[in-house]
């Protein structure tokens, strides 16, 4: 104990040799990540999906409409992704001419988007033409709504794209690649969180109009991000592998306690409202106040957490052209393994949140009992997570990930079995579900830590291969797999529709419908989890290789900076490790 205190005192401001993070920063990580993570979790209550309570209880949009919108957005999504990847993986630093061209394209997109919202382009077509009648036949949509939804995506893409270049270039050298966006997005995000609860868009009587206006509102909301950026930042907090795992296992894990507290208090407050989760005051008061408080905390601590990726100064970084980006990620074997796993995981796409259904529709939980059960289950992962450094030393990532997929398959199969065979007996079925979920949570946290570290390693390896992390160009795999995943992801919604699930979640009160709606997608997921074990048999990227890669990256940063300084050039944003 004494030596621990002495160690803490000695290295409170200055890290030990071979390490990079002073212990004071461990404390900062707790508060920074804690508030950022809890805030981002609060935002999960506001999503343009049928599982969002605002959509579920107030907008009441047809379930299949969300799939229709994603397909409408798909073509532009492919085109805009090209520009996005190019900008992001060059960290916003582009040749002047290229930058001007991109701005022109983005502004053009915004103008077109605005015009579709102001004018009804469907009037340009013959209303009885097959094209317009097809659009009118889409679930929850009509031709007007389709054009406006299409235009909204143009507006969104243009707006986000232009902001991306502007803010990235301005803020990234100072704040690093992972947390800069918090600084430019936090205030508008707070405003949008307030507006989304107070704008009475859900009162629009016509469903097609409600769909496109809601889509516009949520698109504007999504322009501004408040993701879990600081935790992402901590994944690259040190070039030392062991130190990364320590930060991940202790301060980051402790920081999640903030979210646990919020997830207990929030449902209790909501349970006191007259209509509980269906009460609009959840979105007018509870969510905005909680989010804004957490956002303030986040911004207070954000500057104290540092990212430490060995990299050359941004002025001297490797310029990634389009094809280098494309082929660069295709040469990354370990990224390919991960993407195959993601592809198989898409078998569960479109599935409803079965845990929420079990809580709300099987057990009818609300208030404190709901909070306690959620807290109990999420706590189950904490003790094993504190042991993560041991497990990650004792077992290979391959073993851990295969074990993880098998336990998911087994757990889901048990829950499906309980729902099917003893769904009528709420106490028995409920006990089985809770016990299984408890064990699933217990076996989840170590693989999650391993998964995060695998992703960081993949980024480091990519940097070794291509000179940049190419985290955005890696989206090219989505070009191969994305269309397939969205097609596969439509199978479950169509099945759910057959079992009665549409815009009215009350169908889940009907026992046999609820059983089918939960069990059938769960079984599809079981197959997916078993198949997901296969790619991991090819993972052979061990710590020795990773350490060598880090040495190469450090050496590159060191030599590049030295050469730049010798040439009398000003440099920024580098880290030599």
């Amino acid at each position, binding site marked *: 104990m004494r030596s621990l205190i002495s160690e803490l005192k000695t290295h409170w401001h200055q890290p030990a040799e071979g390490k990079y993070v002073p212990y004071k920063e461990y404390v900062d990580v707790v508060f920074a990540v804690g508030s950022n993570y809890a805030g981002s979790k609060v935002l999960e209550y506001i999503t343009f999906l049928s599982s969002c309570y605002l959509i579920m209880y107030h907008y009441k949009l047809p379930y299949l409409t969300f799939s229709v919108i994603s397909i409408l957005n798909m073509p532009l999504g492919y085109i805009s992704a090209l520009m996005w990847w190019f900008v992001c993986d060059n960290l916003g630093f582009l040749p002047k001419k290229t930058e001007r061209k991109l701005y022109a394209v983005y502004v053009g997109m915004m103008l077109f988007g605005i015009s579709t919202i102001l004018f009804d382009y469907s009037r340009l077509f*013959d209303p009885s033409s097959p094209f317009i009648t097809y659009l009118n036949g889409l679930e929850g949509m009509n031709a007007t709504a389709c054009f406006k939804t299409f235009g909204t995506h143009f507006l969104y893409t243009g707006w986000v794209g232009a902001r991306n270049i502007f803010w990235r270039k301005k803020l990234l050298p100072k704040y690093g690649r992972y947390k800069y966006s918090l600084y430019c997005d936090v205030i508008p995000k707070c405003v949008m969180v307030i507006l989304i609860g107070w704008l009475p868009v859900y009162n629009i009587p016509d469903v097609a109009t409600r769909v496109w206006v809601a889509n516009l509102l949520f698109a504007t909301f999504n322009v501004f991000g408040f993701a879990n950026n600081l935790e992402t930042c901590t994944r690259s907090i040190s070039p030392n592998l062991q130190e990364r795992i320590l930060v991940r296992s202790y301060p980051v894990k402790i920081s999640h306690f903030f979210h646990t507290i919020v997830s207990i208090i929030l449902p209790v407050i909501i349970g006191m409202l007259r209509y509980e989760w269906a009460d609009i005051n959840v979105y007018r008061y509870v969510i905005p106040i909680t989010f804004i408080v957490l956002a303030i905390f986040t911004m207070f601590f954000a500057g104290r957490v540092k990212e430490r990726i060995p990299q050359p100064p941004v002025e001297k970084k490797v310029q990634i052209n389009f094809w280098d980006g494309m082929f660069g990620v295709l040469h990354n074997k370990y990224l390919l393994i991960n993407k195959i796993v993601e592809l198989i995981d898409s078998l569960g796409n479109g599935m409803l949140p079965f845990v929420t259904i079990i809580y709300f529709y099987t057990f009818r939980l609300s208030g404190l009992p709901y909070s306690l059960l959620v807290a109990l289950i999420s706590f189950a992962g904490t003790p094993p997570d504190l042991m993560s450094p041991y497990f990650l030393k004792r077992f290979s990532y391959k073993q851990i990930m295969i074990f993880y997929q098998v336990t998911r398959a087994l757990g889901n199969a048990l829950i499906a079995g309980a729902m099917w065979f003893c769904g009528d007996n709420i106490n028995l079925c409920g006990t089985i579900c809770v016990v299984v979920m408890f064990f699933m949570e217990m076996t989840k946290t170590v693989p999650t830590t391993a998964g995060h570290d695998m992703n960081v390693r993949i980024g480091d390896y990519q940097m070794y291969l291509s000179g940049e992390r190419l985290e955005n160009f890696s989206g090219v795999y989505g070009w191969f797999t994305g269309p397939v995943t969205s097609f596969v992801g439509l199978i479950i919604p169509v099945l759910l529709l057959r079992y009665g699930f549409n815009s009215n979640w009350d169908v889940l009160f009907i026992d046999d419908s609820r059983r089918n709606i939960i069990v059938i997608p769960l079984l599809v997921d079981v197959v997916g989890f078993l198949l997901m074990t296969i790619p991991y048999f090819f993972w*052979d990227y061990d710590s020795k290789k990773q350490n060598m890669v880090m040495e190469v990256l450090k050496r590159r940063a060191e030599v590049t900076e030295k050469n730049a300084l010798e040439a009398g050039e000003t440099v920024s944003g580098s880290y030599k490790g």
Partner: protein
Amino acid sequence: MSKKTNNTEEPVILNIPDDEIWTYQVEGLAPPRINKPYRHFTLKKIIFALTIIVAVSVSCWFSVQTIQTDTFKYNSTENGYELTKFSNTGNITVLDIDFVSDIEYESDNPDVMSNFKIKKDTSKKVTSVGKYALNCDEKIKVITIGKDVTDIDPKAFYSCYALQRFDVDENNPNYCSVDGVLYTKDMKRIICHPCDHDAFLAEQFGFTQYDENGVPTEPDVNSKEYDRYVEQVLTFVVPSSVETIGELCFNYANIKNVYLPEGLKTVETLGFFKMTQLSSIYSYKGEAEVSRFESEEALGEVYVSLPDGLYFIGSDAFSYNQSLSYMYIPKSVTYIGHHAFWDTVYKQDNSLAGVTAINAEASAEAFEAVQTGNNWRPQYDYLLFKKSVDIIYNAKRGTE
């Protein structure tokens, strides 16, 4: 690789000369490729682009096919055709279920509200309506059931919020409609009370008024005509022949008072689900052939709450009806499903409102024989947890 050496921190020292920093290859990994030309670059680009284009196009086509919903979907059965799915184009307000139908558009009519007609194939009879054939439709106001439809699933017309009435061909052997409500032909089972039936009655009795946005409004509670509005539009008398309230029958119905016949035996799952206005349940001993309320005298002896003789109350039968304030369980009841009276009690100004107790005619011992599902009693927030309301055994039926 030994599993025990997975994450060992062996120090690595690499002596990389300055001019090899971008080319140095780590043992066991692929060599770096930074700003280096690719072999067969053009060919690779072409293959890449073609692969992407084909993959994206094929998958987009599949995806679009999946979301395209035909207006009518049928399955062929032994006796004819089953309507399995109706997806409204957005402008269909009247639906005939008699023959296999399809939409035909008129190219010379630019008005989207009227530029189509429903074409029927009279050689293909529809004989059944499947589960969730209509689901969350917000436009259909009238459904006409043809003479050959002999089987309608209880969940066939789920959450049709704009549905005002059913019309059934009088030659249909299995079903009939009375005042727009769907029954079996023998009138022993009430199948579906349309969600917006009150709009139909309001129109019929001349109560329909519209606000400045064209939305129908109810008469003001303090107006002279309000009592008459409640009697003629918001009161429903279940005919005396009815023995079963079907599954989902009255869900979301805008009814304030309901009169149940003493011969009623069963209220099935979600029979009176989420009727937010339902404040009074009465039972009557007399004869009533129609569902319109004339006067209590016409119904014979009337008493409050559930009728004597009722023995089955399905799950969620009365749940989410917070306007109810009294519930009496007659001793004839032998089964109460789970959550039968869920969320019918709530807190208001620190006191309980709604169904604050369950009055049971039976004694505590006799009531033990009743088969009850989980959480069948209403529950309210109590010291941050939930508490079920009390059961008052040997209770006398209340008076209004």
